[in-house]
């Protein structure tokens, strides 16, 4: 009898973990990725991964981790999933250690843990300051082992275009574009897991990688998958200025004692080392004496914005502050933060061991994403192996990693993303296997008409794009879109400006129809692929903007001066968006707060 075959789209941490879980159970996986999976954006994660191992005897526990996560997310996270994730965390860190991740150690030879934002405990395991890179490599290497054993087939230059849905709207595979041959191809699969990451590329300059366009998630949404909490976009308080990208300066810099400050006096242009202590304003330490520089990211970004924009105290008069490590011994810095200091030095030319770094906030992470469900027991713990876990509303279509929506609520805590990616993969793998046991027919047994039809439809779409000979340049439209999104849909949001932004997006959509394809050669044509992705990005940008306009309150990363307070009575609910050609249709669903009752979110 034929065995089910699965498709995983995306080869970052979530996609690789899903793949490993499926292959380990003896099933085959087609792994679809834009680039060799070892180059996925997970490599950019720096600071570490959270797990309440309590190595320092601080009485830390998974329950406290769970509480910090839910409070950090301003009570919008799905609580059973956050709980399951926090309980699984120590085991996940041990697993990565067994796979060979070179985590830093304590004097006794145990894993070392450092502090991170939104908690008072040492809970973050780390491998220098390149933890994501280390973890991605460990999983990549395990997947290669299954590839050598014949269980995993990789398609590493393929762009996901859409799920293939049968007449009962069950997902039976995917359509993809081969980015070398420029041919539309279909893959049959008994379940599809989207692990396609975040949409940072919608913003002009973010900490995200170039491939993080959100295009695949948008394609799933346009095919009928519900998208949840799109308005919650995290702006990381500390990034390095750059022309092409805002490189991240990890929260671990503050976890290891880094201090954020600005000159007390407006227009104080002295070099930072010549500004004496009494003329420096350590505004986070002053305002938040308990959490100091380690308040959650949404709060730190807002405070930096307030100090720089409202009070005019930014370094050089702009949106910029100092992040100071110069009081920490260089040897400690090299051992614990080497990787990120290297990045700062290479791209800025200053040595952060000697000079305070100049940093500023940058778009970093999407808390929202494809809506997925779960199944929990009466203790509120997710049931591993339930087909409901990580399942979208489309039968057979699953999602895990940054592309899903449910772990972080309105704001993600630092070092919880690596964790949620791995945990999501650990749920998604077993979920698709149990889902497939109930299928009366496998995708491999279906007639080819369904797949041929999709292939034709998409081939026509690309032929059409290939003939576009207008005056507009897709990269230029992308550039404009990104500037508008950064300007209006980040730290501070205003309804009038959000409306203007939506209108701008509609104008850009009009202009999209007048594109010039730039490149007509049907081999490794990046311009054609990008034109299609750009349309998807415009859809997602519109969704983020419309959902932000609708939510008239302030919660986590979503802040409106017109509505400065959290409003639980009206807005303690998940935004659900459904695609329609006339614009997103929004509805709301209650959040499961059965395990932790919402309280005021205070860090001072």
């Amino acid at each position, binding site marked *: 009898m034929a065995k089910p075959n699965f498709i995983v789209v995306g080869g970052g941490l979530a996609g690789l973990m899903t793949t490993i879980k499926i292959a380990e159970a003896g099933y085959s996986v087609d792994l679809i990725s834009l680039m060799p999976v070892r180059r996925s954006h997970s490599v950019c994660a720096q600071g570490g991964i959270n797990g309440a191992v309590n190595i320092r005897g601080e009485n830390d526990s998974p329950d406290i981790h769970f509480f910090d996560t839910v409070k950090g997310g301003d009570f919008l996270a799905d609580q059973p999933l956050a709980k399951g994730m926090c309980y699984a965390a120590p085991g996940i860190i041990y697993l990565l250690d067994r796979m*060979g991740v070179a985590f830093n150690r304590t004097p006794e030879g145990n894993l070392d843990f450092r502090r991170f934002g939104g908690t008072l405990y040492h809970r973050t395991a780390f491998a220098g300051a390149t933890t994501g890179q280390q973890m991605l490599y460990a999983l990549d290497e395990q997947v290669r082992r299954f590839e050598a054993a014949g269980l995993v087939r990789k398609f590493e230059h393929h762009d996901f275009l859409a799920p293939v849905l049968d007449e009962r709207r069950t997902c039976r595979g995917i359509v993809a574009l081969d980015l070398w041959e420029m041919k539309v191809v279909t893959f049959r699969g008994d379940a599809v897991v989207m692990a396609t990451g975040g949409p940072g590329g919608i913003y002009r300059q973010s900490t995200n990688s170039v491939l993080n366009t959100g295009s695949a998630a948008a394609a799933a949404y346009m095919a009928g998958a519900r998208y949840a909490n799109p308005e919650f976009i995290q702006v990381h308080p500390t990034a390095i200025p750059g022309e092409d990208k805002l490189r991240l300066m990890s929260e671990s810099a503050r976890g290891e004692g880094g201090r954020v400050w600005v000159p007390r006096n407006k227009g104080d242009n002295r070099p930072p080392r010549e500004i004496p202590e009494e003329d420096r304003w350590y505004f986070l330490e002053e305002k938040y004496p308990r959490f100091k520089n380690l308040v959650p990211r949404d709060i730190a970004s807002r405070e930096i914005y307030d100090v720089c924009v409202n009070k005019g105290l930014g370094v050089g008069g702009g949106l910029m502050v100092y992040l100071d490590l110069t009081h920490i011994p260089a040897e400690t810095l090299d051992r614990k933060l080497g990787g990120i200091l290297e990045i700062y030095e290479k791209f800025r030319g200053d040595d952060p061991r000697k000079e305070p770094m100049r940093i500023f906030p940058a778009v970093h992470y999407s808390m929202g994403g494809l809506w997925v469900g779960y199944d929990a027991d009466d203790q509120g713990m997710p049931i591993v192996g339930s087909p409901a876990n990580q399942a979208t509303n489309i039968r057979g279509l699953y999602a895990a990693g940054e592309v899903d929506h449910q772990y972080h609520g309105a704001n993600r805590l630092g070092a919880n993303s690596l964790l949620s990616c791995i945990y999501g993969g650990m749920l998604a793998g077993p979920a698709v296997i149990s889902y497939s046991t109930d299928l009366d027919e496998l995708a491999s047994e279906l007639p080819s008409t369904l797949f041929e039809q999709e292939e034709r439809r998409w081939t026509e779409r690309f032929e059409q794009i290939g003939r576009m000979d207008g005056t507009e340049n897709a*990269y230029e439209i992308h550039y404009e879109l990104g500037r508008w999104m950064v300007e209006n849909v980040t730290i501070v949001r205003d309804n009038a400006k959000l409306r203007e932004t939506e209108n701008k997006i509609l104008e850009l959509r009009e202009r999209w129809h007048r594109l010039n394809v730039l490149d007509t050669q049907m081999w490794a044509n990046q311009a054609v692929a990008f034109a299609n992705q750009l349309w998807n990005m415009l859809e997602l940008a519109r969704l983020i903007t419309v959902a932000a306009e609708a939510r008239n309150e302030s919660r986590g990363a979503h802040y409106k001066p017109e509505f400065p307070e959290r409003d639980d009575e009206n807005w303690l609910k998940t935004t659900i968006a459904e695609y329609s050609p006339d614009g997103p249709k929004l509805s709301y669903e209650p959040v499961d707060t059965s395990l932790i009752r919402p309280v005021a979110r205070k860090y001072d």
Partner: protein
Amino acid sequence: MADTDRKVHLKILRQDTPASRPYWDEFEVDYSAGMNVISCLMAIQRNPVNRKGERVRPVVWECNCLEEVCGACSMVINGTPRQACSCLVDKVTQPIELRPLSKFPVLRDLMVDRQAMFDAFKKVKAWVEIDGTHDLGPGPQMPQHEQEKLYPLTRCMVCGCCMEACPQYDSLRKPFIGPATLNQAHRFNVDRTGKMTKEERLRAVMEKGGIQDCGNAQNCVRVCPKEIPITDSIAELGRETTKLLLKDIFG
């Protein structure tokens, strides 16, 4: 800030298809402070007009993280294999000459196919043979000084710079698995659990195209963007394979 008076001059070796002839194309883009080679290529995408004023196809290249951790954007810049993202315009002479890596098949323009590297990693079993992903408790303890020795070896992003610089390596014509693969084999041989299957890896690097093909030119270590002590890894592998060979002979 864009400074429209100042320009950056680029000279790019282009190739339309894997089989077609390469040709040079030159571009001028507006200079701005702190810009890198990637921002120049992005500027060409937004306005694909060459120095002669002709509309041309945008230049094709690979990139992703733009902070020198993903390994995608390797190319030969002014004669040296390196990452385009960390190549700041202010620090190199103009015209900036960009060529694709020459040891791998060119797909188009600056984009090459480095699959040979990933295949070689399979050959040397560059992974830890874990018993499974179920919860088996903590891994073995390790002193911090050992972590500090292991960590630099683990940072290979498969960018291919060492392979490009190596006079013995050529994925198109020669069987040599190359410096990156040898480092990867060594990295797992020193891993606390990985060393349990050390002999399998040593046997793999003793095969045709293995460690004996290294000519000890030491170019690899000089170009590695992550400063991995590749030659130390190769030397250590050499000692280990010799030991194994002697054991095979004398028992």
